[in-house]
């Protein structure tokens, strides 16, 4: 039995790797994508262009604006001298934000009455707008506390000391990189499996496979092992790159991590095979893989938290293996979560995998006899 399966596995690898283009597509893009996306996926603002409209002649506004110039998040690109200049700058996206201090800014501050600092933000991308506003608020608050301790005034009765666990500098790249590992692994594994049976059907060689002594379960295994092995290799390479190149800390145990990877690949390969046994042509196989994968990635909690989704969509994400895998990856990488705390993530992936395999197996038999 193992000899027969091995023969099929070897045949699958030969089909995949004999073509120069296929070989390249399997190896090149995932690495390139890890590099590009690894740097692209970040919510940490850098060099956001802004304009200053300062009508005040005093020193207080200059002191506050110096904080903006010192921040790596913002870059001052223009100095506005008239209110009419603001709208065209923002409309044309030359600046993302305009900081405006009125003519009485310093006078107000010295008189002890609140001075107002106006922030105008381009809300077309409201996420960036929100991040910028948060950043500015932090700077204004720090400035206020300094001003009070220098110039006197009522200290606030309580103050907040913030500490971030697991990611003290709040680097959002640490959050996204493990996610990219999950997405790229998923992509490749599923495509390899989803198209494998469909290709044989389309080329008519599936019938030939059926008259060999291979039993359905053996065909099933022979078709899934290549995707599994490729996924495993891919995941390992990407994880190495994440740790060695991007310096994402890997706090948890490798055993826990690989348990997650094996279960995730099981579910990915299972779903791929299920799609493959539904499809008659490769186009349908590809379409099926797309229809599963695109929502699986967007709704996985990769970029936007699942918690924010409406209840109904949250229920849909329960069948998304990526969702569980991301929790495992982030937990093992950044928090060092022990094995037993991740069991709630492990069993759903196993369940998805086993159900998908059963359906695929049933379809195999159903379409054969």
């Amino acid at each position, binding site marked *: 039995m193992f000899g027969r399966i091995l023969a099929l596995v070897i045949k699958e690898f030969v089909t995949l790797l004999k*073509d120069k283009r296929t070989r390249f597509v399997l190896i090149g893009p995932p690495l390139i994508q890890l590099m590009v996306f690894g740097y692209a996926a970040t*919510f940490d603002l850098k060099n956001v262009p802004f304009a200053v409209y300062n009508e005040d002649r005093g020193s207080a506004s200059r002191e506050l604006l110096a904080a903006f110039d010192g921040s790596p998040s913002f870059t001052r690109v223009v100095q506005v001298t008239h209110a009419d200049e603001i709208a065209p700058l923002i409309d044309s996206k030359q600046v993302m934000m305009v900081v405006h201090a009125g003519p009485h800014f310093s006078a107000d501050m010295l008189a002890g009455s609140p001075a107002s600092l106006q922030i105008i933000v381009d809300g077309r991308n409201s996420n960036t707008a929100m991040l910028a506003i948060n950043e500015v608020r932090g700077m204004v608050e720090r400035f206020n506390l300094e001003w009070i301790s220098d110039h006197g005034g009522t200290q606030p009765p309580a103050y907040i000391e913030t500490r971030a666990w697991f990611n003290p500098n709040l680097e959002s790249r640490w959050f996204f990189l493990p996610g990219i590992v999950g997405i790229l692994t998923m992509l490749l594994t599923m495509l390899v499996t989803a198209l494998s049976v469909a*290709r044989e059907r389309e080329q008519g060689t599936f019938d030939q496979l059926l008259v060999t002594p291979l039993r359905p379960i053996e065909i099933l295994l022979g078709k899934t092992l290549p995707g599994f092995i490729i996924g495993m290799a891919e995941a390992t390479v990407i994880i190495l790159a994440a740790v060695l190149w991007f310096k994402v800390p890997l706090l948890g145990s490798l055993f826990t991590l690989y348990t997650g990877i094996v279960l995730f690949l099981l579910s990915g390969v299972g779903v791929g095979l299920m799609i493959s046994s539904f499809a008659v042509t490769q186009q349908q196989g590809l379409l099926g893989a797309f229809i599963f994968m695109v929502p699986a990635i967007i709704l996985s909690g990769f970029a936007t938290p699942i918690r*924010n989704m409406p209840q109904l*969509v949250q229920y849909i994400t329960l069948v998304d293996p990526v969702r569980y895998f991301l929790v495992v990856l982030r937990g093992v990488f950044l928090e060092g979560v022990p094995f037993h705390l991740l069991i709630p993530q492990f069993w759903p992936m196993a369940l998805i995998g086993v159900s998908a395999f059963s359906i695929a197996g049933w379809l195999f038999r159903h379409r054969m006899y």
Partner: protein
Amino acid sequence: MSTDNRPGSSRMRLRGLIRKEFLQIVRDPSSIVIAFVMPVFLLLLFGYGVSLDSEHIPIALVVEQPNADTADFTSAFHQSLYFKPMEYSSMRDAEQEMMAGHVQAIVVLRQDFARQLHQADGAPVQLIVNGVDANTARIISGYVQGVWGTWMEHAAMQRGQKLKMPVQMEQRIWFNSEMRSRNFLVPGLVAIIMTLIGALLTAMVMSREWERGTMEALLVTPLSMREVIVGKLLPYFILGMGGLALAVGMALFLFEVPLRGSLWVLFAASALFLVTALGMGLLISTVARSQFVAGLVALIATFLPAFLLSGFIFDIGSMPSIVQAITHIVAARYYVSILQTVFLAGNVWSVILPNALALVILASLFLGLTWRNAHKRLE
């Protein structure tokens, strides 16, 4: 290549090819599914599912010695819409909840909170956030600051004073004053979905002909390569525009994204973008001889770049300059920019024209490369 140059015959040949493509589309319904069902299904799912507005974030409140002052402080959290606070009496319990992922942050009021409140230095409130999701962590710390501000204002009012901070920030958000993240996400989603659909529609059509050996049959006909490309493009363009109209209609009427620019600008930009996306699909299809490679490349080259590099969620300006340079070949980047502007800001030509020009350049690049590549094969 073609010897027959009578004016009428080219049109006839083209009509014949287009008819054949349409028949193929009708017989294998997967193209129709891609063009009409996918945009509706995906936009419904993502339009409702993708949101950056955090509400009811679970947090732990640790009050080591409850009394009237701490109750005053914690009630501010209970009243906030952003938090779902749960109270614990010891730090250990709260830490365990955080490790298990049940709470996102811990707010600690120490034993002598009430006493320190009345001292000159003020009382420390410790905030521990789970930094794994750095974005959420920042949002949480912003909200906690907000709660703290309301509490202080309230406390000052009870003492009959008015809270005075030296500088007060006033924010004004243009184009999206309520900060509905849906307003900017939905136009972005339309762009991503259409990138996918455009490439999917055409990625397989040329490689399929190669794989089945019918490409050679097509080449011995009097059809010129240009006619083949037009004949392959036009049917899918019509299908794609149908899907696009559905998506835009949903954005306007279902998700109620305001359209401040004009409809014809939206239409023209969309047509331009669709040609670019289809052209990219055709190019992939021509370069990759097998459907397998074409499908793989279409998926790798379209969906993830459109999702991550288009400025849809991640700010392009914040990326390193090499990555910024790479985003220039992502067609979705220009379309996202045009869509967000036309929907939320209006017909701002200084944004629309450069982006439209970039789309024209990309489209001619893709189609030109397709033409050249297909040409070479003839020899």
